[in-house]
């Protein structure tokens, strides 16, 4: 089951350039929370702070608190944090030198060592949840680069799910996919929210409206407004949110 995630007074910088200013946001368990906003509004940086990926970038700094359930993510080991809070990126990025099986097994092998008897079952479980098992079950040893872009993205989702995370972060997961693959990813998000807490960054307002239970609007590194998706899209409190969701800018 998913766990609630909360960001409290989160700020982030790259060197002297501050990109996120004191953001606080609750992301309830087993809900899809969408982060929307124009380019450069700090959406991606925000979710990269949630699983401590931000700190892998040279000269990147952050302050504030991230809570997973009751646990402070920044007080636990960074590797454990990333295993509990999985992430899928905009660009499908399966490891090209590895097979489909190896890609999904990679996280488990890094965590538990290479020779695990349960590896095959775990890989199958992750691929089934990611709706990819039926398409790849006979070609698990083939290179992952032979899959289509949509399949590669679902493989990346399976790779993240293999570690059984509580939260799944998705940074514009369908931005480079065709409409059919996008639909499949959106259907998958809908299925996954029963098991995981999902935070999705998207620049596609229609997509946010389709998949998200809650939505937060970011602008210039600040969180302007948050609420249920219906509220935010139909009766926004802030003029800037209204301008953005009605297409007056962005």
């Amino acid at each position: 089951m998913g766990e609630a995630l909360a960001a409290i007074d989160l700020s982030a910088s790259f060197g002297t350039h501050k990109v996120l200013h004191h953001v606080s946001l609750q992301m309830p368990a087993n809900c899809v929370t969408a982060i929307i906003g124009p380019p450069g509004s700090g959406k991606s940086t925000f979710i990269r702070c949630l699983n401590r990926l931000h700190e892998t970038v040279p000269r990147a700094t952050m302050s504030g608190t991230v809570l997973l359930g009751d646990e402070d993510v920044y007080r636990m080991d960074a590797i454990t944090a990333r295993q509990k809070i999985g992430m899928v990126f905009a660009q499908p990025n399966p490891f090209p030198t590895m097979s489909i099986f190896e890609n999904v097994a990679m996280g488990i092998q890094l965590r538990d060592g290479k020779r695990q008897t349960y590896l095959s079952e775990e890989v199958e479980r992750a691929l089934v949840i990611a709706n990819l098992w039926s398409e790849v079950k006979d070609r698990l040893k083939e290179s992952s680069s032979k899959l289509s872009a949509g399949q590669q993205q679902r493989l990346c989702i399976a790779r993240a799910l293999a570690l059984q995370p509580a939260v799944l972060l998705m940074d514009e997961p369908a931005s480079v996919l065709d409409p059919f693959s996008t639909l499949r990813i959106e259907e998958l998000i809908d299925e996954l929210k029963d098991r995981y807490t999902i935070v999705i960054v998207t620049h596609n307002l229609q997509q946010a409206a389709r998949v998200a239970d809650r939505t937060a609007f970011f602008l210039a590194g600040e969180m302007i407004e948050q609420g249920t998706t219906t509220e935010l899209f139909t009766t926004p409190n802030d003029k800037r949110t209204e301008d953005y969701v009605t297409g007056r800018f962005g």
Partner: protein
Amino acid sequence: MVKRQGLRLSRKLKNALITTAFILFTGLSFLALLSIVGNVLYHAMQPLITHVETFQIESNELIFALKELVLSLWLVLLALVISTPLALLTALLITEYRDCCFTSLIRLFVDVLAGMPGILAGLAVYGLALSLFQMPTSKIVLILVLFLFLMPKLSKGFAQVFNEIPFHYREAAYAIGANKKQVIFHILLPMTVRALSASVLLGAARTLGASAPLLLFGVGVHYLAVDIYALAVRGSDGQAADYALVLLLLLGVVFSIAAWFDRDVME
């Protein structure tokens, strides 16, 4: 309207100039390469052409050339054994540990040393080993020269290979809980092993063909490129061309293997 047409015309002119310059320089490089190969072939094959009836293969000459080649290969191989792991560590340091305070300094050193003319590597070892420590010219000294010539070039080549791997693969590995060491050993090295091998081969080929680093140590160093130089200076053009032909053939083979290794990883 007139301004836009003017801009378009200047852009077209610029493109035409760049294209012409590119074709001209490529053609010139190709001509230079052809003239080298043609010259070597002409001198090497001249006895066969002019004395076709009485021509006999000078087996001694060939054996000497092959012997020198094996000795040269042996020296380069030993230099590679020392320089490859060190170059790999240096490249990893300057690409994967950018936060480290010495990284910029090391990168600068590598850049400067990689651009250094070969003779300076020879001068450095000559000055230190022979003049300062009074060491005799031995295989160790020669390997040291080749190491100094090869190591920075390999480091720079390896660093370029690592930099070509998009950062999102590293991010993907971090996101499933890999630490830096695991990212290097499980993701980066398997993805780059072909390109790294190609870099090693190209470095070896470059070192095999370089006479400048070892010139200061005299002509008796049993190094094919130095022998070619010595023979040419002595006026034995035919023999120099034979040696050069052996070297060119070997370099051709090495470059072909390197090109095969350097195929796109996605293939």
